[in-house]
Every structure is written in structure tokens, then in C-alpha cells.
């Protein structure tokens, strides 16, 4: 693939990070009240505020403040969390794995299920089963993650318990009481049980977006001449679909991955809140409640960087997978 195209793509990382840093700086500057106070717990004495103002250089000209801010972000210095009493970077380093543990399997599952449904619909476009699946995915596409999460809790915890179902799923945290005393396999099973409802919620709200995209691209590819030619050559239906239709139809999915990543990270805010999942999304909400502005800004910054890295990775994958882009990149 062309080196220039890749260099341009990779350049997007620092440019976007710089842009996000600038946006956060502007938001902080335009916020009502004194930025020094926003960065501190309420009720702090005037001397401390003045001290912080001097320490952070908030008494300097705005251009200098801006350069310092960008410089700190570039060094990975995200400031000091008021509510946790330690550096924001160390708080986030602790939360990030939990969020990834939730988001990664959800994205994977959503892609698998969404691709399967979308392919089925695309091949059978216009028939009755396509119409039914269309209705179902349209419905799930309109469901908010926070409400679906609450409904799953109502069904699989509250009512399951009441109706004496064999499975009553846990609805909060990453592991159960007495986890340390369990054997290795039981520990694993406990973790999976705790993952089930959060992952199911996040997966279900994303499946519709994927299947709807794939339905369109599969239906378009299935009508193409080279697919008719493949059929005319007497290839089996499975071979036609797998080798000829999906090969082109899957390409838009890579672009879609770049769009779904921010959606998944955003959905994690709600899912983590409902299921008391100790990740960045829940921490963001509690940080807002605690008026911990440095932590709020830090989480905003880190989630965006993660998303940008995902986007660039998706674009690189697309260049690798689609020779048409490689040629003119």
C-alpha cells in the first residue's frame, strides 16, 4: 500500500488529539465561573484558589495557558482528580480495562450477529422473512441502551427470581460475593455470569445498525453482474455468497466499525451506570456528580483518543482489504 496514504492517516492521530485538547480547553475557558474554582472542590479558601491559579499558570495570558494545556496533554499529564485524590491518569488506567472488557466482546458479538442477520436479509431481500427481520432490527435500533438494561434487570433478575426461573442473573459489579474462594473455573463462570446482561444490552443496541448496513450492501452486491456470472458458472449458492457476495459486501463494515466504536463507548456510559460496572463511563457520571472537573475532562480526552485510534485502525484495515482504495491512495 502507498506510504503517503498511510502517513496521512497516521498524521490524523496527533491532529485529532490536538483538536480535542483545544475543544476541551475552549469549553473550560467559556464555562461560567473561574477555571481555578472549577478544578477545585467547592468551599476552598481564597488563598488555595490563588495558589492553584499560580501553579496551573491560570494567571498568565490565555495563549500561554493554552500552550501549557496542550503540552501537559501531550505528556499524558491529565491533572489531579479531586474526588479520588490522585492523578487523573492513574484513575483512568484503573478504569480502562473494565470498559474494554465490556466494549470489546459486545462489539465482536454485535458484528457476528449483525453480519449474519444482514446477509440473510440481503440475499432474501423483499421476501416475508426479510420483512419480519427488518421490523425486529428497526425496533432494536430505536431502543435506548439504558431502558433495555433496566428491562433486562426487570426480566432476568427481578421476575426470574419471582417466577423461579433456573437462571437468575447478577445485575451489578464484575464478580460475586466470595469470588476469592472459588476455583479457577468457577471464577471464570462467575465473571461470565456478571458480563452476560451488560454485554447483551450493548450488543442488542448495536446489532440493528450493523445488520441494516449489511442488508443494503449484500443486496447491492447480490445483484451485480459478476455474481450472476458466478451463478451461471454453476457455483454452489454457499460458494457464491461466501466468495463473491460477502467479499465486497463486508467492506462497508470496516467503515462502520469506525462509527460504532464511539457509539459503543457512549453506550458503555449508560450500561456501566445501570449495572454498577467499574469502568470509565460510570466514573464519568460519578465525577460529574462530585464536581470533579479534571476527571471529567480526562475521561473525555482518553475516550476520544481511544476512538480515534480505532478509527485510524479501521481505515488502515480498509486500505489493506480494498485494493481500489490502495490504488488511488
Amino acid at each position, binding site marked *: 500500500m502507498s506510504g503517503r496514504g498511510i502517513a496521512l492517516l497516521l498524521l490524523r492521530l496527533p491532529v485529532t488529539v490536538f483538536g*480535542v485538547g483545544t475543544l476541551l480547553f475552549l469549553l473550560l475557558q467559556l464555562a461560567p465561573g473561574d477555571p481555578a474554582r472549577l478544578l477545585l472542590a467547592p468551599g476552598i479558601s481564597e488563598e488555595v484558589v490563588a495558589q492553584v491559579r499560580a501553579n496551573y499558570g491560570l494567571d498568565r495570558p490565555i495563549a500561554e495557558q493554552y500552550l501549557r494545556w496542550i503540552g501537559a496533554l501531550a505528556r499524558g499529564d491529565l491533572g489531579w482528580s479531586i474526588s479520588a485524590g490522585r492523578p487523573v491518569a492513574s484513575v483512568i488506567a484503573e478504569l480502562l480495562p473494565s470498559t474494554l472488557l465490556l466494549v470489546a466482546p459486545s462489539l465482536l458479538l454485535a458484528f457476528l450477529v449483525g453480519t449474519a442477520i444482514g446477509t440473510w436479509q440481503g440475499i432474501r431481500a423483499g421476501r416475508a422473512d426479510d420483512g419480519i427481520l427488518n421490523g425486529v432490527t*428497526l425496533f432494536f435500533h430505536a431502543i*435506548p441502551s439504558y*431502558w433495555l438494561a433496566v428491562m433486562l434487570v*426487570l426480566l432476568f433478575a427481578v421476575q426470574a427470581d419471582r417466577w423461579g426461573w433456573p437462571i437468575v442473573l447478577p445485575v451489578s459489579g464484575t464478580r460475586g460475593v466470595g469470588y476469592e474462594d472459588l476455583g479457577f473455573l468457577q471464577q471464570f463462570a462467575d465473571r461470565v455470569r456478571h458480563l452476560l446482561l451488560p454485554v447483551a444490552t450493548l450488543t442488542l443496541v448495536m446489532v440493528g445498525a450493523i445488520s441494516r448496513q449489511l442488508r443494503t450492501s449484500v443486496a447491492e452486491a447480490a445483484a451485480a453482474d459478476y455474481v450472476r456470472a458466478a451463478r451461471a458458472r454453476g457455483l454452489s449458492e454457499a460458494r457464491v455468497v461466501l466468495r463473491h457476495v460477502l467479499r465486497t459486501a463486508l467492506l462497508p463494515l470496516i467503515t462502520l466499525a469506525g462509527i460504532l466504536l*464511539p457509539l459503543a*463507548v457512549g453506550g458503555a456510559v449508560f450500561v456501566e451506570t445501570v449495572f454498577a460496572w467499574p469502568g470509565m463511563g460510570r466514573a464519568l457520571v460519578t465525577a460529574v456528580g462530585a464536581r470533579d472537573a479534571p476527571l471529567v475532562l480526562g475521561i473525555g480526552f482518553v475516550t476520544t483518543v481511544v476512538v480515534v485510534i480505532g478509527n485510524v485502525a479501521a481505515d488502515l484495515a480498509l486500505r489493506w482489504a480494498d485494493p481500489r482504495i490502495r490504488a488511488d491512495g
Partner: protein
Amino acid sequence: MAESTVRTPGRSELLAGGALVGAITLLALLAPVLAGDPTAQGDLRLDRFLAPSADHLLGTDRFGRDVWARLLHGARISLAVGVGAAALAATIGTAVGAVAGWRGGWVDALLMRMVDVVLAFPRIVLVVVVVALYEPSLPLLVLVLGATQWPTTARLVRSEILSLREREFIVAARALGIPEGRVVVRHLLPNAIPPVLVATALGVGYAVLLEAGLSFLGLGVPAPTPSWGGMIADGRAYLLDAWWLATAPGIALVLLVLGFNLLGDGLRARLDPRRVG
């Protein structure tokens, strides 16, 4: 009558979406007539957590307030924020996209990098950051949700203008000495209306979901103003005894968002018949 037997693309989606959105809008507009005061508290000993009945169609909440009344008044907030934000996004997006597509060069490059930055932000995270730094209010919600939604529209308008700017009718218009601004507004932008309409209809759905999401997190319009997201959050604590509290506003939310999504899909099928389905 050969024409009448040909199925118009997107017809059923438009009808279903229009019916849903129309019905909910009507209920929202008539809320003061159809339901009582959404903030009136009942007798705290007798009227709390009443199950749905003829007196209270959807039961009552922990303050003995009528859920049906709160639902109808909540629809007003959802619709106001959703439509307001989508309209704002359509305006900003069209303006930015038109300037970027028409000017080209460094103006285009700069505006498109701005689009990248806003799109890179997980929307809910950006919105939460803003609401955390500023006081939440109805105008702020419309502003924030609109200001995070315009990039999609900007991209659509830009690509439409790029594909048309070298066409004969534009070259001819310029050759006739028609001022640039007039060429863009009168000759180019009308062509971008279909994709903008589709994006705006879908945008209302997203904005409605986000507004309710913010209220769910306790960051939306302040209580006691009824909002669907806030009602779901309130009902969460009482799933064991009063399941209808969290269920009813969620169903309303799904129906409203579904309505706008169907409108968007139907418009797209109607305006772009090449698309399959």
C-alpha cells in the same frame, strides 16, 4: 391505471412513521386537556405506587403523581429538544458543508478537520462534559445536542456540492454573472435538500434518545419537570413493586424514535430510488 398499482418506494415507512410521530405530537400538544397536572402530588399514604387503573391510566409514582400526565408532558420536552437540536444541526451543517464544498482549498481542509474532531468524540461523553461545566437547562440541551450533530449534515452537503459545482448549469449560472452567494443558495443547495431531510429526521431520533439519556443520568432538565429519561431512572428503584414506572416511559421513547427513524427511512427510499428496499 398502471401507475397506481406500482408501489411507491418508502410509502409504508412514511405512513407508519408519520402516524407514530403525528399521534405523539398530538398527545403532547393536548397534554393539558387530556391529563391533569404532572407535578401534583397525591396523598403520600394512599396514592403512592397505585397500579394502572381507570383513575390513573398508567398508575402513580412514589409521590403519588399521575404517570400518564407525566408521560404526556414529558413528550413535550422530548419533542422540543429533539426537533430543536435537529433543526439547529441542519442549519449549522448546511452552512458549513456549503462553505467547505464551494470554497475548497484550506477552508475546506480546516472545516473537515473540525468535522473529524467532533465526530471522534463519543457524543454522550462530549455532552456530559459540557453539561458538567455549565448549568443544565432546556436551551443548553438544544444547543449542545445540535452542536454535536451537525457534522453528518455538513459532510452530506459538502459532497453534494462537490459533485455539482463543475456541472454545466452551475458554470452557466456563474458565466451569466450571478453573484456567488446566489449561485450557492438558489442553484446548489436545493439539490442537497433530500439528504439533509433524511439526516434531520434520523437526527431527531438520536437527539431524543440522548436527551432522555441525560435525564436518566440526572443531567437533563431539572426536576420536577417531567422527562422520559428521568421517569425511567426513578422507576428503576421500584422495579420490584411498580414495574410500570420504568416500563411506560421507555415504550413511549421507543415509539417516538421508531417513528422518526421510519420517516427517515421512508424519505430515503422515496428520494433515492436506487437504494435497494
